[in-house]
């Protein structure tokens, strides 16, 4: 008898929670912009803010750039080196390479982009939370590099995505990625127009 009551209580709590969740989902879907991740969509409205709020928002965005753990080719080897102990990117707050695009705001395109990879890269970009930034790392992502004449290569990722920072080199040294992220920080913080 006693146990049944507890179960009833629990199931009631559960159904309440479920209703609450349904309501939240319904609300977020009802809003004008239908986004897969409604919470991040609302946060991105902060871009329209002004004055002190804008300063605070920019400051916090500048100091928490989360790159996506996403390597394509050779440059990804230098990307791994960027995360390892010699360069130690964590001391500047860059290194939280995440496995899922939904937690990231920087995409480092490291390597050549073939025609069969373009839809995948685009999809990853669209899954990232706003505001999102793209770094074209290395010759291949910048302009096609040595594969310029190949029949299966995009001649630069900027044909499909808007690129914020270009890094030259084949492959660029990991220090160059550090410099690129510092440049991106200036751009995010509104120091440099871009």
């Amino acid at each position: 008898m006693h146990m049944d009551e507890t179960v009833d209580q629990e199931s009631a709590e559960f159904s309440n929670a479920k209703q609450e969740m349904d309501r939240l989902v319904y609300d977020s879907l009802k809003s004008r912009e239908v986004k897969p991740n409604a919470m991040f969509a609302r946060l991105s409205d902060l871009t329209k803010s002004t004055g002190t709020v804008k300063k605070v928002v920019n400051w916090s965005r500048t100091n928490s750039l989360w790159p996506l753990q996403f390597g394509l080719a050779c440059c990804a080897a230098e990307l791994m080196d960027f995360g390892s102990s010699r360069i130690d990117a964590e001391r500047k707050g860059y290194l939280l390479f995440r496995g899922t695009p939904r937690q990231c705001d920087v995409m480092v395109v490291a390597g050549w982009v073939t025609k069969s990879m373009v839809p995948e890269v685009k999809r990853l970009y669209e899954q990232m939370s706003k505001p999102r930034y793209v770094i074209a790392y290395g010759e291949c992502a910048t302009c096609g590099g040595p594969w310029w004449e190949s029949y299966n290569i995009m001649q630069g990722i900027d044909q499909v995505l808007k690129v914020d920072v270009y890094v030259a080199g084949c492959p660029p040294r990991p220090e160059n990625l550090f410099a690129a992220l510092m440049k991106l920080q200036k751009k995010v913080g509104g120091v440099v127009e871009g």
Partner: protein
Amino acid sequence: MIRMAITRINVGPIHPSTHGVARLVVDVDGDTIVNVEPHVGFLHRGVEKLTETRMYMQAPPYMEKLDYFAPMAYNDAYVAAVEAAMDIQPSEKAKYVRTILLELQRLASHLVSIGTLCNDLGQMFTGFMWAFKDRDIILDLLQEATGSRMFYVNMRLGGLHSELPADFEEHAITTMNYIEKRIGEYESYIEKNTVFMERMKGVGVLSSEDAKALGVTGPVLRASGINYDVRKNSPYYAYSKLYFNPKVMLQGDNFSRYKVRMMEMRESARLVKAAIKAMPDGAATGMPVKLRSPNAVNKVSVVSREVPRGECMMYLVADPQKPYRLSIRSPSMVNLAAISHIAKGARFADLFSIFGTLDVVLGCVDR
């Protein structure tokens, strides 16, 4: 027993543990893998076709980007095929210098393999950090010798692009002593970890008959108990004059594949020191790169090299001034194909430890 329906899981092409952009379609029955189907071609850029439009010595930069963890090994295989087509013999000193640089490259490549394996197993990020720290030290050494950190393009017809710097030998011996000490530290750190051992021992077994039938090469083949190493079976460069033993393990599981690489690293460090001690006098510099190289005299040349991931073959049909057809036998491609055999019957979580120990580089698979 309740049998569950077979579920199809898609892994990749972008996944933190695929070492590149491979797509694996996995059929699972509960947690047990029924079938794995690798899909490749996401990095295909037509290397073999591109070389047909280039002069002989314009192609090495393409060869280096095949396997970006061991670029020099592939560059060497291509240049050796061209040398065979032109009937050019590298000088005695050049043979030794190439041996030293190739062994350094093998060390750097195996360190990446072990570092990323630790990373794939989830909770061993220290192994990744250590391996990349030591890889950087070896890359510094290679940079000293060639002027570049990752893509060297230092092989020339009949030798190398320059002599070794004056203090290279001393630096190399100091570094090798350090690396040998570090390998002991790796072993004591990794092999005392219970989680690592549980996920490695007896998982992903490849028997020696299957290994032969599937055509796998390199550490994967030697871990299955077959003593085949191109450096020993058909020696090139200084390998016939230096004493070394190919490392063989008998079990054929994940652990033996990892352990063979560990033992090979120790052997490589020893080989570098021995080659430096036995290095003859003379010049190592080859022909400078000009648009016109000597005409090819042999129509067909086949060269086989033991690159860190296995046996790489270059099949070159020669026109006088440029390759008519170049075909590359990539060890990564064959080793990747073996995954559908090895992973059958394993748990889904073990798929990535198996993938990690096969040590596949996708740039080389897709070409």
